[in-house]
């Protein structure tokens, strides 16, 4: 196919959306940018990285927006994409970075001693490691349950899964986490 034929066949304008779609996209952006950010933050734990991932997820969403106009479908797609992008980024980072500079998830500021702060940071790291060690299906349910305040119906909509499946996965995840972190109780009690 020659260029002119192809262009006249409509390949040329594939990148941009028409104004009505752009308006809808803008609504989705206002509606769900924090959601994408939080999902990524649940995996990456660094705000800057989480924002980068949210941005990339929306870029991809924009490219596929004609098939993502429905609000629920868009949010579900966005959550999956942000989660996947965050995991990919984390895997890349692990090859070269360590967590010394990893700032914990939005913890309230404390004016405690350096020792207490170090202990708190270690605790966060242990918890984060335990969550990171979950299988992906359990991990995303855990992160979304935290974001959605354990509203399982909401998590089920985001994952496009039956609520019973979400409940079952969340239970399995919490059981694993409890068993992996049970030592925390005795450890903190001795401090």
């Amino acid at each position: 196919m020659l260029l002119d034929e192809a262009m006249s066949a409509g390949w040329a304008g594939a990148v941009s959306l028409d104004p009505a779609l752009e308006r809808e996209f803008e609504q989705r952006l206002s509606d769900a940018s924090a959601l994408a950010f939080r999902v990524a933050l649940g995996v990456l734990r660094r705000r800057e990285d989480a924002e980068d991932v949210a941005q990339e997820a929306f870029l991809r969403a924009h490219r596929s927006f004609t098939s993502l106009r429905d609000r629920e479908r868009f949010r579900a797609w966005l959550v999956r994409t942000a989660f996947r992008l965050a995991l990919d980024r984390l895997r890349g980072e692990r090859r070269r970075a360590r967590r010394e500079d990893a700032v914990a998830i939005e913890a309230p500021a404390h004016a405690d001693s350096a020792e207490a702060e170090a202990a708190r940071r270690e605790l966060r790291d242990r918890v984060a490691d335990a969550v990171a060690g979950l299988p992906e299906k359990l991990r995303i349910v855990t992160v979304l349950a935290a974001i959605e305040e354990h509203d399982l119906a909401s998590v089920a909509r985001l994952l496009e899964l039956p609520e019973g499946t979400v409940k079952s996965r969340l239970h399995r995840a919490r059981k694993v986490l409890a068993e992996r972190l049970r030592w925390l109780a005795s450890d903190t009690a001795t401090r």
Partner: protein
Amino acid sequence: MACERYRDTLSDVAAGASASADLEAHIASCASCRQERHALRQALATVDAELAGLRAAEPSPDLAARIRTAVAMSSEATPAWRLGWLWTLTAAAAALLVALALIGQRVSRTVPGAAATGVGPEASGEAALATPARDGVPGTASQSARLSNSSREAVSRSAPASPAALGALAPPSRRTRSEPEVLVPAGEAETLLRFVANLRRRTVTAESLLVADLSAPLPEPKGVFIRPLEIVPLDPEETSGAE
């Protein structure tokens, strides 16, 4: 031991399952299992407290603006990953030029009049993306495959006496209709078309094609020795057909 029997169930209970009457009775009478249940619940409370930060986490106020800008830029310019093929194409073009220069040198050393032997644009790899050039859009995608003026000079420097290379550098006006109009790597047609469309709409600049700096002089190939081709002119009497 009864405690071992309840160990797994205790985790379930800590995770939210309801305890059976049997288990409750055991816990009431067993300090160890009470302690275990407490430890498991404490662990989950810690997890919940840590993850609760996610709910409150807000992106920076300019995130939405950043996304808007990124989306607008991606709508205007072909994404970088779609231009990835240009690197391949540029490398292939450079390799082709080097090969042509080598062949040209070899031919020019052995046959001074080789320019008349038919080594012309058809065989030269004038990988013309002809259609965009017809519009005269400056810096269209054809630059990526067709040789730019600067690269013609560069090749001329590397193979100054090469008729074949000069044939390759022949101006577009010498191209005939029998030559192929488009030479595009397999599977890359759509990407190319989008790029050219953006060029025409002036939403992407031609300079993006110059990232490989085709104007830079090509390095002399080293470590390659090709034995000169020996061509012995035939005796006219033997080839005249006269018996």
